[in-house]
């Protein structure tokens, strides 16, 4: 695999290629920091980190245009960052500050920026799938050209929501792309035990639209496949289900003691690190030098540090805030 294959996606430029690299690094570093801060007790609640899955979010969002929408999940930091969210406001949200995306009312599982098209993370597994279909319905009914990308995990495909929503997307031929991040487990449950099929993308057959399984740790494959699906959607040719095989390096959340999988397995997947693989691709294409890597890493580091400072300096809500924002005027 080399960068030449990227010609399939015409809008790609060298700048974009580097930007994706930077984004993946930013996601990884953001998540590492969140993990640290959480363990230090500086972040409340719980977190679901996407370390190891950076290529799915970045590759998918790379092909989106301004106005395109996403829906996300409990494991949503990467999606938000890839969609262009400010990590300052994300971090502020995790710190429960009024400058956060949700003014501290949502936290990690509800980061959203509806105006920019980020329809939100979601604490309900598969809960955002029908929302994505609804957003796509708006596009169709209002004659708008945006596409909605719907992220969810392998576990989510066993929810009734998944079934009902994908069927409606199909019969109405809506401009939506379903991105299933198959990281092999829903919490502790292996996808192999929770379904009796080889590829989750097979499920698209039940609704009558294309489904495909790809290597979700191969950024280029993610970009190309999503590009095709987004193009189909925008052309009015209906939905696609893309299963992206990947792996979560960290525990499911704070309560995970990792008993359901082996270290060997985890290590094997770490060998397939999407960032290092992409680094190699860029290196081979002579787009990335060791110096450049260092430069980008420094930038990312200071960006994340700045976000933490921003969050720390931001005001906390006052108890009286609790009762506002329930009803719209």
């Amino acid at each position, binding site marked *: 695999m080399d960068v030449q294959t990227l010609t399939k996606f015409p809008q790609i430029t060298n700048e974009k290629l580097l930007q994706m690299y930077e984004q993946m690094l930013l996601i990884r570093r953001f998540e590492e920091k969140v993990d640290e801060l959480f363990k230090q007790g500086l972040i409340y609640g719980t977190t679901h980190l996407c370390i190891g899955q950076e290529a799915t979010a970045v590759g998918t969002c790379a092909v989106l245009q301004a106005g395109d*929408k996403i*829906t996300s999940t409990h494991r949503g930091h990467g999606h938000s960052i890839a969609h262009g969210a400010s990590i300052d406001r994300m971090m502020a949200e995790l710190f429960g500050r009024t400058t*956060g*995306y*949700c*003014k*501290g*009312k*949502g936290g990690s599982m*509800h980061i*959203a*920026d*509806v*105006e920019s098209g980020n*329809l*939100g993370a*979601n*604490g*309900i597994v598969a*809960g955002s*799938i*029908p*929302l*994505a*279909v*609804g*957003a*796509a*319905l*708006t*596009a169709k*009914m*209002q004659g708008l050209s945006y596409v909605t990308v719907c992220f969810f995990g392998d576990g989510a495909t066993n929810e*009734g*929501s998944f*079934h*009902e*929503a994908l*069927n*409606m997307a199909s*019969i109405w031929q809506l401009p939506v792309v379903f991105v299933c991040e198959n990281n092999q487990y829903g919490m502790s449950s292996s996808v192999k035990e929770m379904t009796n099929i080889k590829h989750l993308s097979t499920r698209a057959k039940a609704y009558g639209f294309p489904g495909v399984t790809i290597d979700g740790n191969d950024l280029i494959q993610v970009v190309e496949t999503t590009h095709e699906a987004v193009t189909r959607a925008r052309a009015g040719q209906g939905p696609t289900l893309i299963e992206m095989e990947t792996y979560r390096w960290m525990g499911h959340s704070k309560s995970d003691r990792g008993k359901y999988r082996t270290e060997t397995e985890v290590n094997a997947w770490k060998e397939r690190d999407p960032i290092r693989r992409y680094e190699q691709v860029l290196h081979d294409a002579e787009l990335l030098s060791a110096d450049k890597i260092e430069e980008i890493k420094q930038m990312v580091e200071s960006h994340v540090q700045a976000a933490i400072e921003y969050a720390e300096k931001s005001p906390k809500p006052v108890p009286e805030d609790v009762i*506002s*924002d*329930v*009803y*719209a*005027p």
Partner: protein
Amino acid sequence: MTNERIITYLEAVREAMVQEMRQNENVFLLGEDIGIYGGAFGVTEGMIAEFGPERIRNTPISELGMAGVAVGAALTGMRPIVDYQFSDFLTIGMDQIVNQAAKVRYMYGGKAEVPLVIRTPSGAGTGAAAQHSQSLEAWMAHIPGLKVVQPATAYDAKGLLKAAINDNNPVIFYEHKLLYKTSSQVPEKLYEIPLGKADVKREGHDLTIIATAIMVHRALEAASILAKEGIDVEIIDPRTLVPLDEATILQSVAKTGRALIVHEAVKRGGYGGEIASIIGEKAFHHLQAPIKRLGALPTPVPYSEILERAAIPQVDDIVKEARSLIKYEVS
């Protein structure tokens, strides 16, 4: 004169939708068999002819997805009205209604709106048995972020539905099956009854009956019977449970000193408990008798007509309860 026009509750509901849809492109309907079939009770009859299948959108039998799709559409600028064939089926959509629709705005720090109406027939009296006869409005009223409407007359139905459609929040709009064919005077011109304003359906001095939906009519019948015995009943129809017009209720109880709450929902855990508690707390010193509640017995709704009647408050039950309240003397 249009002011004297009499139409049914069913027609009033339809008219509000039709008139709103004519003036707002973003309002559309989503539900099972609402197209050519006209909906399970005929409410949407003929609408597809005017608005076409895009805006009168038949869905698969997918009550959870249907709600979720509506939330997604509402979040992105549409104003969906979701039609559930029976309110019992909202149980299937609860996750989307409660965990998404009701909370999205708050979870997103006030930076989202979900202008969504869920219309659905509730109540017993048709022999449809336990899974097609429930009145679960108390659930909805318990959920911050939702509004809850229960019109009792054609006039109220039209005005409240307009308000619901124009509201920027998710509103659960309960239509009572047995009221569909009842009629009242309904102006042709679109008008709005604000959510949160109770209606005094009858003025009286001896006893306040707070009744909802079909129980408003049973209470009115009971009041006629009681009037002959010299008992003068005031009947308050809250019309919306959320927001609740506490002031009107409390004013009435301040005057009568006696309160009876009647709803069709099961008494245990019904919204009558909320209303009674508010009265008990805020009109304590006015009370000349204990606050009483009438609601369905703690049983699923049975099929047999005899049993079905026995499960749900009837005019007689109201009359009896009212008499005993009037007789009550503080010892």
